[in-house]
């Protein structure tokens, strides 16, 4: 039972990561390769905050779900804060240069975490050992993860339907043309980048507070993050349904290849091979830009809107 719960939680976290990356890469057209750094920032900040909450003994006075909200919002805010700072130099770049700069940001994050003792160095930061082998008072569970999954999908779909989402699509399709129509490209790109990164920060908190309670720099390297990019590309850039289905299938495939010894040793080889095949045979992904999730949610809203009128 616990095995299935783990898989379901994994799938949920991957859905959050994939849809938020889709908002940045597929919908706005910013090719960010540093998404996993924000995932890591969320994880690290939640672990640090939890440790300080414990050591200050505040925990005895406040109910645990309030603390959980506090931690997850803190993780999101810190990730958003850093993404805002990063976006200033990085979003001035275009296309391939931007990709390399965000990749560089991810590497910088990893090497800072490895070299600063406050964050535990290369060994990582473990709550268990810091708290003297006692379990933290609160942890994530399946329900919390899926509440955030629904929230993420809902927010992104509503964004796409809004005025703001149409601006993002216009920027993706032609930057110069949308600039000439009077759209402030920098503002919209930054907004989309920050929203996506905040969601990645939430995912990081959910990931690390489920049953791990430790974070190592290696967990958040660019190489680990390539799997999320694969999910987005597999499902189709710009399609939320695609991202969700990509996250589900690839996480299941990953669980499956963990059982087979040969494939589990060569996970990344398998991944990259799949990605190359996918790109050559069907570059637009499984769903292309088709979006049933969006249509479904918007249909519900249309009914509600009509009733109000």
């Amino acid at each position, binding site marked *: 039972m616990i095995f299935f719960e783990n898989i379901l939680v994994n799938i949920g976290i991957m859905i959050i990561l994939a849809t938020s990356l889709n908002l940045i*890469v597929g919908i706005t*057209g910013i*090719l960010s*390769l540093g998404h996993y750094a924000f995932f890591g920032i969320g994880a690290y900040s939640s672990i640090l905050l939890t440790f300080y909450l414990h050591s200050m003994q505040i925990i005895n006075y406040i109910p645990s779900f309030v603390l959980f909200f506090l931690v997850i919002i803190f993780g999101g805010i810190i990730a958003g804060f850093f993404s805002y700072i990063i976006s200033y*130099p*990085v979003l*001035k*770049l275009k*296309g*391939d*240069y931007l*990709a*390399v*700069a965000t*990749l*560089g*940001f991810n*590497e*910088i994050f990893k*090497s800072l975490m490895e*070299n600063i003792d406050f964050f535990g160095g290369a060994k990582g930061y473990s709550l268990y050992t810091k708290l003297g082998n006692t379990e933290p008072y609160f942890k994530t569970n399946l329900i919390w993860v899926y509440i955030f999954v629904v929230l993420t999908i809902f927010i992104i779909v509503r964004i796409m339907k809004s005025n703001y989402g149409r601006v993002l699509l216009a920027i993706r399709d032609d930057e110069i043309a949308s600039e000439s129509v009077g759209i402030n490209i920098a503002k919209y790109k930054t907004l989309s980048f920050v929203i996506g990164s905040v969601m990645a920060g939430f995912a990081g908190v959910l990931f690390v507070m489920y049953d791990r309670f430790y974070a190592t720099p290696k967990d958040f390297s660019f*190489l680990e993050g*390539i799997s999320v*990019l694969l999910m987005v*590309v597999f499902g189709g*850039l710009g399609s939320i349904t695609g991202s969700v289905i990509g996250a589900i299938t690839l996480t299941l495939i990953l669980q499956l290849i963990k059982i087979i010894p040969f494939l589990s*040793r*060569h996970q*990344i*080889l398998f*991944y*990259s*091979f799949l*990605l*190359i095949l996918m*790109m*050559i045979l069907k*570059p*637009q992904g499984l769903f292309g830009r088709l979006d049933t999730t969006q249509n479904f949610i918007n249909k519900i809203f249309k009914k509600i809107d009509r009733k109000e009128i």
Partner: protein
Amino acid sequence: MTEQLFNALSLGFTYSLISLGYSMVYGIINLINFAHGEFFMLGAYAGVISLIIGIPWYISFFISIIVGAFVSTFVEVIGYRPLREKNSGRLTALITAISFSLFFQNFIFLFPGADLIGLGNRNPMHGAVITVGDFKIPLIKFFIFVVTIFLLILLILIVYRTKIGKAMRAVAFSKDISSLMGINPNFVISFTFALGGGLAGAAGFLEALDKNQVYNFMGVIPGLKAFIAAVVGGIGSISGAVAGGILIGFLETISVVIGLSFIKDVISFVLLILILILKPSGLFLKTQREKV
């Protein structure tokens, strides 16, 4: 001091050799070939394995170059050409490049024990030193210096003095018009990949002799830095790539000498962002033309 100077120069020249491939490929099809660092790695592996088998070093050197060129052309024909013909956009090409890079890095793991191969005393230049007056320079640093200059002259001759070089420059200018003039753009692009891959393979061989070992992730960081070198020097220009490589080599050596070795890998990314904001066309590119 002189030793550090030679360290910086040999490091810079290694970066230059890799960044030339980036620069030429970007100049001709506007694609950052992320897999380029892997041609460097595979070239190094080929050279080291042939040295261990017992093949003399000058033949191993050619084997490195040929393997680099071959793998590079292979990736172009298998991966990038179909995407170009489908006209599927930069994003897909870039993701393909990254996945090729990951594929080659992890391909090595299929062979147990191959992820780190030491050369040991098979290295023809291990420990050899040249003494000039009071200075002692390791032979390999001197060798890197000489070989790189030789390869650079060869490259400049190919690009500016041969028919295929002229075709390369024409395709870089406009693919459609050059195909109207009877040039086969696909062949020219493949040739460019082969040239860049060969240079990367040569750089890999030199690096393997210098460090006396090869490992499967050795292409990642040099590859990224060489790309930065190409951007810093002005992408598409040969002298720019060389100058950018040497600049990064010097910056890194200086950061190690003054005791800040942990910023060694970070400094080039900072340089990249600074250059892209302040002078996007690169430091050494004179004319600025935007391709639309």
